[in-house]
């Protein structure tokens, strides 16, 4: 479970068809959540949110939830801890690399480790994930080499991995678009008779996009096996979640005919349990489900952002007490599931990962000039061919021309 994501995969990633598990007709979907819940308060502490599923308190205590039982082994708990620590370290290193000028931008997941690791560890290899641009922890769990995530932020590519190697689609920047791709992919899985599930990640801001609503409609109507996993980190750049909805987001699902649930997004066990249930819901032919992970973006929107312009420091501080890693560590320590050796080992691994990321970024070559003409089309296009050869000729003219003429004095 906690094998470093870079491990090679040899098995085919699509589930085989014909399990017969997927009922062809939509089962009646329902949610028990009342739509008349009180207006969400942005800074409300997680425990005071009545509908929030929580299995591990900020103090590191296990609590029970009638619908979402889970009993992870010590090994699994240590794995979740390791995942979160390594993800956070990698993320921090990427932020540092941006400051050093090695990356053009970085979108940090700081604070959202539990939401990402918990949900991603609920998946099977043959499930498929459609992320936004911040799902570094999910990518980690899917086995995508973390250094591959850095390419687009360095500006050497627009997505540096093969989506089908790890069933992890490329990052999608146009907000909300990927929820429809996930729905379509899930429709395909259902047509194939497979029992794998598809997960679409998106944010609180994204919930306002028409595409997300259409994804809800299509998935419900076709009963597609897709889980909509919304990380409500309270902010869409500078806009608080109240700018997107005046009621909690998980409630939106009911109006489209499928269940929605809000989970403590800083509680890795709750995220794991709820996502497992949602994925099972999808696998068993009941169609889509919406999970709203109530969490917090601890850092800036991206390295280009300055949150001091729009939110108070106290807000962030209040969320520090709910840190997802800290609470799991408290549990592990209280229950004596870890010793210093393990903790040190994880730190060492984290150091090694950070070092590897640093070195990988610095070694990343700029793409070749002519690369911009590649892969525009799969089957070729005469205009691209013409422009490619004209540009090659143009470049060649610099090589052959002696130190005179227009070319020599140019220089971008």
């Amino acid at each position, binding site marked *: 479970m906690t094998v470093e994501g870079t491990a090679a995969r040899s098995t085919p990633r699509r589930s085989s068809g014909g399990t017969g598990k997927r009922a062809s007709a939509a089962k009646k979907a329902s949610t028990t959540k009342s739509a008349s819940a009180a207006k969400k308060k942005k800074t409300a502490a997680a425990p005071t949110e009545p509908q929030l599923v929580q299995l591990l308190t900020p103090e590191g205590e296990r609590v029970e939830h009638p619908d979402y039982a889970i009993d992870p082994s010590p090994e699994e708990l240590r794995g979740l801890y390791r995942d979160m620590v390594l993800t956070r370290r990698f993320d921090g290193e990427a932020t540092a690399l941006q400051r050093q000028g090695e990356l053009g931008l970085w979108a940090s997941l700081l604070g959202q480790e539990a939401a990402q690791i918990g949900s991603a560890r609920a998946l099977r290899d043959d499930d*498929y994930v459609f992320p936004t641009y911040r799902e570094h922890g999910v990518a980690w769990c899917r086995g995508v080499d973390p250094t591959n995530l850095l390419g687009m932020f360095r500006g050497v590519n627009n997505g540096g991995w*093969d989506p089908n190697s790890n069933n992890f689609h490329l990052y999608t920047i146009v907000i909300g*678009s990927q929820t429809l*791709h996930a729905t379509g992919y899930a429709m395909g899985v259902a047509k194939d008779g497979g029992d794998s599930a598809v997960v679409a990640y998106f944010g609180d801001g994204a919930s306002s996009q028409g595409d997300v609503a259409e*994804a809800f409609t*299509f998935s419900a109507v076709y009963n597609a096996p897709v889980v909509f996993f919304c990380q409500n980190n309270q902010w869409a750049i500078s806009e608080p979640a109240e700018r997107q909805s005046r009621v909690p987001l998980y409630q939106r699902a009911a109006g489209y005919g499928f269940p929605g649930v809000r989970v403590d997004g800083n509680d890795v066990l709750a995220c794991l349990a709820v996502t497992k249930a949602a994925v099972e819901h999808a696998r068993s032919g009941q169609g889509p489900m919406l999970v709203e992970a109530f969490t917090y973006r601890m850092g800036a929107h991206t390295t280009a952002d300055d949150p001091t312009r729009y939110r108070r420091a106290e807000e962030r501080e209040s969320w520090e007490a709910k840190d997802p890693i800290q609470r799991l560590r408290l549990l592990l320590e209280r229950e004596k599931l870890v010793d210093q050796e393990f903790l040190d080992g994880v730190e060492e691994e984290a150091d090694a990962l950070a070092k590897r990321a640093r070195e990988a970024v610095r070694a990343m070559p700029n793409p070749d000039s002519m690369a911009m003409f590649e892969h525009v089309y799969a*089957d070729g*296009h005469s205009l691209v061919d013409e422009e490619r050869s004209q540009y090659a000729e143009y470049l060649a003219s610099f090589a052959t021309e002696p130190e005179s003429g227009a070319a020599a004095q140019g220089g971008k």
Partner: protein
Amino acid sequence: MAGTRMPIAKAINEALRGAMEDDAKVLVMGEDVGKLGGVFRVTDGLQKDFGEDRVIDTPLAESGIVGTAIGLALSGYRPVVEIQFDGFVFPAYDQIVTQLAKMHARALGKVRVPVVIRIPYAGGIGAVEHHSESPETLFAHVAGLKCVSPSNAADAYWMMRQSIECDDPVIFFEPKRRYWDKAEVDTESTPGPLHGARIARQGSDLTLAAYGPMVKTCLEAANAAEEEGSSVEVVDMRSMSPIDFDTLQRSVERTGRLVVVHEAPVFLGTGSEVAARITERCFYHLEAPVLRVGGFHAPYPPARLEDEYLPGLDRVLDAVDRALAY
């Protein structure tokens, strides 16, 4: 099936049927494509024969249709999507331009999104607003998309087959007012390349270039011009992205004059690119500037004015005369 006379709408229907028979991954989806067979009956009978799982009536949401088609393509399907009318493609424009067009390149070639988007387009059927537009520029300008438009039933059949086989997204513009024009369709023959232009009529004094619904108009204009003693060549461009400039160039090198005709507005229409590039390629051959006949810079007018708005025989001949007068 070889050598059957049929209208364009039927030829497309046959092409869809053939593709679905040959490849279980081919899907048809859109609004009203199932039981109704589409508002133009282009998908008539397909749901009956291939089932609701392969001929899919969708919710009324074009972004959702194209967005889920992308997902289906990623999962191994080859969706052929119908947009009910030209004017209703715009809710899907974001998915087409930012996702469909770019996904293959974004993934450095690791994924393919073979989605065909069928758009019954252009005017001449006396319809209400949004039902008669020619938005091809808005797709041809976008890298990653291919755009084609057949002018006759044989091309309609083969170009649809080829579009479905193509691993790139293809915007397939169907000349709706010509849906009932009949021609011989030989489903056993070997078609030319999808993006190659075709000399539809030979001539020596001037070249008329067009695609889709305007090919017929240009052929009529060429006949009319002949009676006046001018020999006009007609090139059926067939593809608006890529454009087969080589065929156009060869023609213009012979005739020395070019008029481009389309229903779309002239300003930044396909003709602007043809004029610019052919002028560059044939600068010393052109005896007149490339002239363009097309729609005006105005919303497509109400039906009672469309004959004024659309390029007809007279307007084409007027441009031919002006070009010949240089």
